């Protein structure tokens, strides 16, 4: 009950934290693009948080390299719950091009639980916004 109330409160304004776990940084740029004048997700109350401890949503890009997984787990633990994890890009969803690599430890859902998958290489900002909207609609 308390948890679902808290989840409902989340719907008003999502604070997202962005985490790159071995990406080509294009997904990361497209995330930032969502903040710039053309897409401007701040008008929906979504904004980037400076620390994972303030975040409701973790946006994760990249394949999750061996060197990174410990840190990803740690950051996930530090995120206040209830929170959501969004896997952005083919890399985070499946490993994409790099799935055969020797440093591949992901994909992300092997490391931490994932709520939303947004495929694409990179997904367009519109796709990311659509993904977040679906997430918001699914909160009950």
């Amino acid at each position, binding site marked *: 009950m308390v948890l679902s109330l808290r989840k409902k409160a989340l719907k008003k304004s999502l604070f997202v934290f962005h985490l790159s776990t071995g990406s080509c940084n294009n997904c990361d740029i497209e995330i930032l693009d969502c903040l710039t004048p053309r897409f401007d997700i701040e008008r929906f109350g979504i904004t980037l948080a400076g620390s994972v401890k303030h975040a409701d949503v973790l946006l994760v890009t990249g394949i999750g390299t061996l*060197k990174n997984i410990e840190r990803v787990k740690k950051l996930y633990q530090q995120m206040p719950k209830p929170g959501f994890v969004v896997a952005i890009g083919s890399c985070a969803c499946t490993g994409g091009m790099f799935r055969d690599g020797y440093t591949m430890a992901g994909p992300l859902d092997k490391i931490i639980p994932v709520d939303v998958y947004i495929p694409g290489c990179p997904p367009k900002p519109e796709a990311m916004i659509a993904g977040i909207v679906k997430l918001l609609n699914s909160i009950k």
Partner: protein
Amino acid sequence: MKKVIVPIGPYHPLFEEPEYFALYCDGERVVDVEWIAGYNHRGIEKISESKHWDQITFLVERICGICSTSHPIAYCNAVEDLAKVEIPERAKYIRCIIGELERIHSHLLWVGLAGHFLGYNTVFMWAWKYREPILDIMEMITGNRNHYAMMKIGGVRRDIDDAYIPIIRKILEDLKPKLNMLTNAVLDDPVLAARLKGVGVLTDKDIKEFGALGPVARASGLDIDVRRDSPHAAYDLVEWKVITQNEGDVFARAVVRLLECFESMKIIEQCLDNLKGKKGEISIDVRNIPPGEGIGHYEAPRGECFHYVRSDGTGSPLRHKIRAPSFNNIPTFKASCIGETISDVTIILAGVDPCYCCTERAIVAYDVNTQKKILDGSDFIRLSQEKTRKIEKEIGVAPSRWEEKNWERDN
């Protein structure tokens, strides 16, 4: 003497791949810098050895999202060097167009981030807004905003249709006055000048010692540019010039990048002239890659990007070596950061464009003796932004209302 270590990284709130910097500070001054990389290591060279020659163009595209056409061009150059083939003229022009469009969007991205670090969020929003039309062009002619998949061994994958050419021209024409405005706004601003001039200076000796490349080297007076020095694609068929500056500070690097955008536009326009109304092959078939070695390079927005391939005559390379420009540029921190204050380090690190914003990582400062936390990520950028505000006051320039509101909200 009490020394403080400021670790920068490996995670950062805003973006880019993780990397780690440790600054050793004595009071406000930085006395040493240490760099640990590898958080982003995906083993691309190894994966490349298991892929077919044609697949590798897609793989190298995904090395970096911002230079996502520089690596394929360099790789195709390497394989074409190995197979001794010459690409058709039309393909040359198309390669140039894609490469230069990428340079404009990459430089604008840098200008925006640099503005953000200095507390000029207006510049950030402007630069990123003006970058969008370039991405629109890309989407129109290649089908994707980034990762264009245009390059192919022996030419390019898609033609630029005649119908698109006037549209591209129109978008570029519209962009020019805005870019002009942005350039003047940045270059004439007294506060930015006070903040950036004389900061993070690299002499041409430093550049040679570290082997720095691209705009970093050109801002220190070194006249190097692979596009001119080792012509490939259509760079020897069009008129353009290499931009250099002599000061070697962060301001000079910004000048070089901004002026390069205009040169890129010049190149694109000439290439479009040469495409218009003409027909021709856009690629030739390269069936077999003979045994041997090949090298290829391309002037990526951050400097020379280098690829080496060795073949044993089979379907995939025996060895594929890649050297990206940031690998050379990042260690110059050793020369440029030492002796500077902590609040300037943010912009110096960003000024090299090390795939940009190492400083936006989770930055935490610990006191060496007590292990107590002193500063963290947002503090670091705040320090830099505070310095700008201070200089603004000294010079007597008022920040815009919007900036002020933002500043109050964030702090």
